[in-house]
Structures are given as structure tokens and as C-alpha cells.
């Protein structure tokens, strides 16, 4: 396994500056005339990892999409405020959003293949992002794309650069997507079920990679998963969502050791009764 290429390792500025602030955000479905997310608040500072756990329909993905300014058409933020590096996103113009996305806040989702063009080599797609976002020359962009492919632990960056999506496995594609997402040095990365469709060993590889990036570059992470254990592995703070309500929120160890809500207790019991935990406890 390669380590991060040296020139990329920039010591993160250690600040308490809030890079993503979500204050009591409510999300409304205008077609069905009902509120879907009933108030969610959390803050991300550089190097911090916050996790949201919940089932499909709990509102976790809508919260992510609201923070990225890409809510589906008839959904709207109906209350509260979201600030990205101190700027209220409600006041951003489309041009300002374009500048912000990728360069400040970025995201990876569940199905990596659907975010890549199947008829363009993956390397060129990363290089394109770099050229648009950093105004680099073609040569510089290619060079940087190769660096990024090495950074996400792809074994042969030069080979992968010239491959098409159908030639790569799900885990490799998700790595390409992560490389693309961090190409413009964002401050915040949202990983929404980014490892859900992957095999367990590949999932662990991607989670390890995210932890690596967060430690070395000071990236702030928002990790969304239906699996409490995935979130527990990475996050400092966890929010448990159910039917649009945050039913539990706090430092991860606190939530795991003293869950207050019945639903959180069920998520924990699932692992303790049926998972590996019951055997690992014996050690």
C-alpha cells in the first residue's frame, strides 16, 4: 500500500473555524405539502468527522443535498440556515455556487459508475475537473490527476488513467470518484453511503482512505450511512435520524455507551447480538 505522495501532504491549519454550519435546518416537500426534515443542527471544523445514521427516508440524504445546494426540484429549505465557510448559502448566486462546489465543498455518493461518463477515460474526467477548477494547463492537470490516483491508493495510476469505467471494479470507481471530489482541495467532503454497495473488505479500504485523507490534509468529513458501525469507525460526533427527526446526537463514544433513544439501542443491539461484536467482546 502506497502512502500519500509527499508533495500533497500539507499540514492542515489547526483552527476552530467552522467550515460547515447547519442550524436547525428544515426541509419541505412542496408537492406533498409536508415537512420531511424537522430541524437538524451540527458543525464541522477542519479535520472533524460527523456522521449521520438513519434508514432510507429518514432525511439524511436530503440534508446532504441541502448543504450542497442540490435539493431535488420540489424540495426546499423551509427553516434554519446553512453556512459554508461563514457564508449563508441561501444568498449564493448560481455562479457563486459553481465556484464553491468542488473547491470548498464536495461529495461522493453510493453508485460511483453513474457519476462518470462511460465513454471517456477516467483520467481525462479527473483532469477536466482540475482544469476547470484550478485553470491548470492540460499537462499540469494530467500530472495532478495521476498524483490524485496515487493518493487514493490505486495501484497503477498510469494504467487506471487510461481506462474506462467498465474496466474498473466498484471499489476502484469509488476511489476515482474520491480523487475527483478532492481534486480542487475542498475543505468539506460529504460521503453519502459511499461504501454501501461495496464488499466488506473494499468498504474498509475506502473508509481507511477517508480517515487517512482527513488526518493528513485536515479535510472535514460528513459521513452518511445506514450502518451505525460504519459511522462509529470514523466519526467524532454522530447524529441518529429517524423519520426526519434527529433522535440522538452526541460524541460517538457517548452515544454508543449511553444510547438514550430506543431506535439507537436497537441499532446497537443488532451489532451486539448478531454481529461480530459479541465474539470480539470476549477478548
Amino acid at each position, binding site marked *: *500500500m502506497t502512502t500519500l505522495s509527499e508533495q500533497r501532504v500539507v499540514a492542515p491549519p489547526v483552527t476552530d473555524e467552522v467550515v460547515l454550519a447547519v442550524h436547525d435546518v428544515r426541509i419541505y416537500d412542496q408537492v406533498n405539502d409536508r415537512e420531511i426534515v424537522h430541524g437538524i443542527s451540527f458543525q464541522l471544523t477542519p479535520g472533524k468527522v460527523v456522521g449521520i445514521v438513519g434508514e432510507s427516508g429518514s432525511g439524511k440524504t436530503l440534508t446532504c443535498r441541502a448543504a450542497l445546494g442540490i435539493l431535488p426540484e420540489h424540495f426546499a429549505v423551509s427553516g434554519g440556515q446553512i453556512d459554508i465557510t461563514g457564508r449563508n448559502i441561501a444568498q449564493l448566486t448560481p455562479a457563486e455556487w459553481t465556484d464553491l462546489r468542488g473547491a470548498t465543498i464536495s461529495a461522493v455518493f453510493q453508485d460511483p459508475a453513474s457519476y462518470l461518463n462511460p465513454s471517456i477515460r477516467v483520467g481525462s474526467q479527473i483532469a477536466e475537473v482540475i482544469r476547470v477548477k484550478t485553470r491548470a494547463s492540460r499537462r499540469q492537470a494530467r500530472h495532478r490527476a495521476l498524483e490524485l490516483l496515487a493518493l487514493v491508493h490505486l495501484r497503477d495510476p498510469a494504467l487506471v488513467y487510461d481506462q474506462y469505467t467498465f474496466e474498473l471494479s466498484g471499489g476502484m470507481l469509488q476511489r476515482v470518484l474520491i480523487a475527483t471530489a478532492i481534486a480542487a482541495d475542498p475543505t468539506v467532503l460529504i460521503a453519502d453511503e459511499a461504501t454501501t454497495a461495496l464488499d466488506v473488505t473494499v468498504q474498509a479500504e475506502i473508509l481507511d482512505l477517508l480517515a487517512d485523507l482527513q488526518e493528513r490534509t485536515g479535510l472535514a468529513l460528513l459521513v452518511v450511512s445506514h450502518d451505525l458501525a460504519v459511522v462509529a469507525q470514523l466519526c467524532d460526533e454522530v447524529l441518529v435520524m429517524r423519520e426526519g427527526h434527529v433522535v440522538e446526537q452526541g460524541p460517538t463514544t457517548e452515544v454508543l455507551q449511553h444510547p438514550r433513544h430506543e431506535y439507537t439501542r436497537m441499532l*446497537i443491539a443488532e451489532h451486539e447480538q448478531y454481529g461480530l461484536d459479541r465474539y470480539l467482546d470476549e477478548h
Partner: protein
Amino acid sequence: MSTDNPVLTVTDLEVHYGARRRRRQALNGVSLEVGRGEVVGLIGETGSGKSTFARAVLGLVPFSRGQVLIDGEDVTGHSQRKWRELRRRGVIQYVFQDPLRSLDPDATIEDSLVEPLLIRGDSRADAVARIRPLLSRVHLDDELLPRLPGELSGGQRQRVAVARALVTEPALIILDEPVSALDSANRVGVLEILKELRSAEVSLVFISHDLGSVAGVADRIAVMYQGQLVENGPARDVITAPQHVYTRLLIGSAPTLRSAAANRSERAALRALLHA
């Protein structure tokens, strides 16, 4: 549980897909025995051959070498007709990942449940009487009987599929990723039912990519990797003292509630070892 009269004995199974230059080995000399009343978890990643194993045992894909005994009967050279006859007796049953695709969308739950019994030759009245106690075993209400699969939740549908597998009182049920498509609450529900079945006279082969979902139910865990069985032992031993590098990586990678940061370098070392 006894191994002197196994429900399933698979010896040196080999399966190939494709022809000539595209011929690829999917199973490479797999041997596995399932004792009476035993629950075996068969674990492996995408492409490891675990579903091919299930299909070969069920007579759905031909195997090029090896022997399969189901409840003492050698099915190795069985013709399609003999396979159909074996399935009709309901000695072996299977449950797939997506119950919406394995249940007839136009048949009521009652019709789906009695069908295997009617095929076996029971009268409808007898069949209906038999399925009632099964419903409580899979924690379903009688009220669901007149409904269609589409009107049920994913968890309820999977429980119907388990009940349908149980109606013929099979010696063995093979479940291929039975809980992978379910959310937490429903997953716990189905796992609970599988756990309760252990007291019954039925053996289970529980196939999953997720060691976590099998660990709490299985007596024994078998791990497949690249078409081979690389580990096979009591669940506790496999989890606490895995032998093969892949199993060690698999266990090190399984999400648990304990912070895994400390295992990161260990995982990196195992990956390097596995891919060397």
C-alpha cells in the same frame, strides 16, 4: 446436531462457466458438509463463488467434477426430471435475496404458501391448515394471507419466503443473502426467526457477503475466496482465530461498534500480503 448423518455432503466440487478460451473456473474443489440441524454461514465477496455453490447444489448449474449428496441421496448425475422430482418432494428449499422476485406478484400470500403442498399432493384444506402455525413461526399475522406480495413490506415479504421454504418440512434450506436488502429493523426480525429455526429439525446454509449478519446465527462459518473454500470451522474459532489471510482481512474489515482506527495499519499489511 450430528455429523454422522449429514444433510448435505459436497465433495471436491468444480464448476466452470463459459466455453473454450472464455472458460473460467468458478468453483475449484469445494468440499463442505452440513450436519443435521446445523446452521452453516457461507461467506464470500462478489465473485467468490458462493452463489455458484448454492446453484450447483440445487442443480441449477452443472458441475464438471465432484459429488453432491442431499439427505443421503447422490444427486451427482441426476437428470432434469430427477431434479424436478427431488425439488417437488421439498427436501431442499431456497430463499433468495429479493422476495419480490421469488414470490408470484399475482398470487396472494396464502396461494404462495400452499402451492408447494398442493404440488406435493395435499388437499387445499390440509394445506391451509398446515400453513397457519408456520405464520407464527415467522412472526406474521393471519391477516396478511389474502394480500399480494406488493402490499407487504420488504421484511414481511422475506418472512413469507422463509415460511414458504418451511412448508414442506425440508431437511435443508439454502438462503442466499436473505437479509442484505433489508433495513436494520427488518434484518433483526429475519435473523431472529432464523435463530429460532435452529431448534427445529432443519439445517440452514446462510450465504452472505457480510460476516456480521451471519456471526450471530451460524454454528459454523465457511469462507470462500476466488472459488475456493479457504476457511471452515466453528463460528467462534473462525472469528477469534482466523487462519487464512483473507479471513483475517475480512474480520479486520467488518464494521463493528469498536473504533477501528487501531486496525488500520494491520489491514494495510494484510492487504499487501493477500495481493502479493
